[in-house]
């Protein structure tokens, strides 16, 4: 009986994941514009007041400058957004027109933002300084 229960659970898990994947196919990916990026940063980080946003060309992330000099990094997480204040020790590099931001928080992962050649250079220098 225990084996049957376990198999029902495993089968149910696999079936539900497969159906969720199948029904989600072809759905438009969530994308940000500058206005939304600033709103998401302010919602996610209470006390953060957004001033300007550098949004990835595909809308899948952004770097938001705050009025108090801090910056917020947004990255797409499925069809939602995850935000962090960019802390000291953050590694930022430029790869052509892309800015790659790697927070000290390893599990957050590096975020690649296609922000344009000039902005990528400026932002990499600012974050790195």
């Amino acid at each position: 009986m225990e084996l049957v229960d376990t198999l029902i659970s495993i089968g149910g898990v696999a079936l539900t994941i497969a159906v969720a994947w199948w029904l989600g196919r072809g759905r438009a990916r969530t994308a940000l514009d500058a206005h939304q990026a600033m709103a998401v940063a302010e919602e996610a980080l209470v006390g953060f007041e957004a001033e300007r946003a550098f949004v990835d060309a595909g809308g899948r992330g952004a770097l938001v400058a705050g009025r108090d000099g801090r910056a917020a990094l947004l990255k797409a997480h499925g069809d939602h957004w995850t935000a962090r204040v960019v802390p000291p020790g953050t590694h930022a590099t430029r790869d052509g027109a892309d800015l790659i931001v790697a927070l000290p928080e390893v599990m957050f992962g590096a975020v690649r933002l296609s922000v344009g050649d000039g902005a990528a250079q400026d932002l990499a220098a600012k974050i790195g300084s």
Partner: protein
Amino acid sequence: MDLPDPVKLAVPAFIVLMLAELFWIRFGGKSRYRGHYEWRDTATSLILGFGSSIAGVIFGGALAAMAYGVHAFAIVDLGWSWWAFALCFLAEDLAYYVFHRSAHRVRWFWAAHVIHHSSQHYNLSTALRQTWTGFIALGFIFRLPLFLVFDPALVFFCAGVNLVYQFWIHTEAIGRFPKWFEAVMNTPSHHRVHHATNPRYLDKNYAGMFIIWDKMFGSFEPERDDEACRYGIVKNLGTFNPIWAAFHEWVGIARDVWNAPTWSARWNYLVKPPGWSHDGSRDTSEAIKALWAEKQAKLQAAE
């Protein structure tokens, strides 16, 4: 008395209802309350749920031994009458409320419970995103007093029913129930508030089955039509990795305790609310609510 395991019995219904919700969200009529699925999020939730059932098997024996050990010192034997069942349901639900409130206010307990809140989605699969480390966090201590009054089998049965009840309230597919039901029972609307990170909603509605405890103990907050819930945790994970979801707060505690400057700070990193820090560099839910209230006051003054 030999009582069935309500959770085991409910597993097929969990699967059918999740599939029904998935199809409803994809093909259902337009409604403010619809919900949303992301397959990777669902995979994380269900893997965590399956892992939790394995943890239950591993630690179940110790839990049962402890329950019967305490029951040996029972102060009264209420037997198996219908009113003993009813009383046990109520007492178990109150014990759940106390446990759940502590699980949000004491970081040690939160480290196990945060798993359940780590999804930014709110659907029936979120209900199954259950802890792997509840036993290690000592969450069972809140139920121990019940064994002094009730047979452990009865308490475990009521706890199982409570857990099964809480499954269906993890949905956006249902709006609100009639007022009398919303007044007494925990509902999807009340529990959406509990899973929300909006400052207004943070650390509210800890109920299991009956919302009356929140109303009695001042932790109730109704869902508002003008403020949609944003789900997840204050610092969302940004990864679907189930291992990280299961253990990230324990890793955070270990780091903080290791780096703390004093023994007092070490202790506080274990028992103070999530977000507490010895140098005030992080925000507890109170700090978040205060910052938010300050911003609201400024906005109102500017109008």
